[in-house]
């Protein structure tokens, strides 16, 4: 079947990555930051898929599965922590969590 040229794939992934990155930077709500990070991770995953497709190897997909798993684990821990934070700060504004500085 017809495959897309690698470059396009990578460019797409890159764009996705950039989007994620930017939104991490601009968002203040911790949950959204978490989500944006996930987007970046998935962008990486996509890149792997594309690469794998280019060389016709399964490794790309394998990596992608790894990434998903890891992301899941991360999010679970993350959400738990976020609960704690909310519990203490009564807000999800990441800037509020700046007790430690200097």
């Amino acid at each position: 079947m017809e495959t897309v040229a690698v470059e396009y794939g990578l460019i797409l992934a890159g764009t996705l990555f950039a989007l994620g990155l930017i939104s991490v930077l601009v968002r203040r709500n911790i949950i959204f930051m978490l989500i944006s990070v996930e987007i970046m991770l998935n962008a990486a995953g996509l890149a792997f898929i594309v690469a794998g497709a280019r060389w016709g190897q399964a490794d790309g997909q394998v990596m992608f599965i790894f990434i998903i798993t890891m992301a899941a684990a991360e999010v679970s821990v993350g959400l738990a922590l976020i609960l704690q934070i909310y519990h203490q700060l009564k807000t999800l504004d990441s800037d509020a969590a700046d007790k430690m500085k200097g």
Partner: protein
Amino acid sequence: MIHLLWLIPTLPFLGALILVLTSSSISRRAAAIIGCSTIGLAALITVLIGYEFLATHTEAYRHVAWNWFAVSGLSVGFSFHLDALSLVFLFVITFVGFFIHLYSVAFMHDDAGFTRFFAYLNLFVCAMLILVLADNLVLLYLGWEGVGLCSYLLIGFWYDEEKNGYAARKAFIMTRVGDTALAIGLFMLFGVFHTLDIQEILTQAPKLWSPGTQTATIIAFLLLGGAVGKSAQLPLQSWLPDAMAGPSPVSALIHAATMVTAGVYLIARMHGIYELAPLAQLWVGIIGAVTLLIAGCSALTQNDLKRVLAYSTISQIGYMFLALGIGAWSAAVFHFMIHAFFKALLFLGAGTVIWALHHEHDMFKMGGLRKRMPVVYWTFLIGAGSLAAIPLVTAGFYSKDQILWLAWASAKGSPWFFIAALTGAFITSVYTFRMVFVTFFGAEKTHTAHLPGKLMHVALMVLAVLSLVGGFIELPHTFGHVTLLSDLLHPILPSTVLRAGAESSEVLIQLIAATVALSGVLLAYIFYIVKPSLADEIGSSCFEVHQLWYAGWRFDALYNLLIVRPFVWVSTINKRDIIDQFYTGLVTATEYFGKTFSRTQTGVLRWYIMGITAGAVIILTLSLFINR
């Protein structure tokens, strides 16, 4: 007997040692006995050795106590060298020293630091003896500095007075300036001869150098520098008048009779070098001539009895330098000896007077003492006469006359020298008798507290006798023609070369000298007995000059301006060490960085992300430009 030479410096040293160690426990009486007896013994031994020396016509005797140190070619022994020159000095030092010790017993009798005083005095004598006995220049330097130390200690003996301390420091530092020159001289000598043994150097110098060699001249000048410092000659003379802050015996022994003539000794010792450095020798003469004049002028204007004597000392040493300058070696030594006698006498006399009028120094507050203390008066008169060179009777006449005559007649002499010396002689007799008249004649102005006792009288009288008869060991050949001293010294010090056809004029010169001296006395008589007002008129008429002379030609002011003030200024301005500021600057810079960076640690999560992103961007841009 002669092998006991080492005892001569050792005895006083032991005396000093004992006195220092037992200073707290020992009684005055014991201290006095120790102090005097050691010197007395030294004097005794000197006599015996001297007798043997003359009897056996010994050239020289060398005694090595131990080898001091020996490093790569320079081997210095703690060794003594006795020859006629050092013998003469030995005599003067031990004898004058002894009598001054005797005198001090009475003079210092109720002073708190009695023991300390004798300790210092003994130490001084020891150092002085080492100085004149040293057979190498390093040992000589040891004695040289040693006497400096003692003079410092003794000038500042009454240390509660701030100004005494100042005078002491001034003396030490100014002489040290000279010493530095001397030290450098030693370095150069070693560089040339690879030894510092005096005899060695004197024997080798003529082989190595033709007269007028540059190195020789430089070295001669450096040695001269040392001599100038110790002997208070131009330009380092200004410490001596202040040195009078010390007790009178000290002024007598150190700052008149012995230490200050160390410079004369040094030059006489190293005459071989000066023979090879005519320029330097000429300058010795010039310095002497100028010094004797300016010091004389200052002496004319002083009111403080001891300061008059101090300036006169400077000027008399000026005569000795003049003599050395014109190659009249033995004449210089002769005058040194006589000067030691009468100047010690004068100082002791002055001391007695001051002591009697409870430490009144100003002679215009004295007067009329002739009756109160006849012995002092007569002895003082003798001393004064000798200083003023009253013809025929006094020893001073013969010694000074010899210099005058040679200043005219010797090959290296010149009319200028002669004129200077003659003027000097005139001034001398004026200020001398000014002093005598003001102090002893006229009405009594201050009540005398206590009169001198036996001890003092003995010392005074002995010295008086010496300064009368001392002259007869050397008489001009116009009458008597005795040449004991010059014969004695001849093997060491070459006799003076006379200008051709000068002999004839000797009598004439002597007559001139005599008349000048007497006219000086006469002038003083007119001014201070007949019409005292006259002196003040002249004094006030040329006030500036008077002030200038009174302030010793303002040398102190000059040095303050040129050296002392800048030095102190620099060191105080930089007390907190400018270099340190640099390092503190570094520290502040570092701390500043610390502050700035710690401001970046905001604790805000997004800021951290920002940081990472920035880093990433930088790296990525790098990665686009660098390939492989």
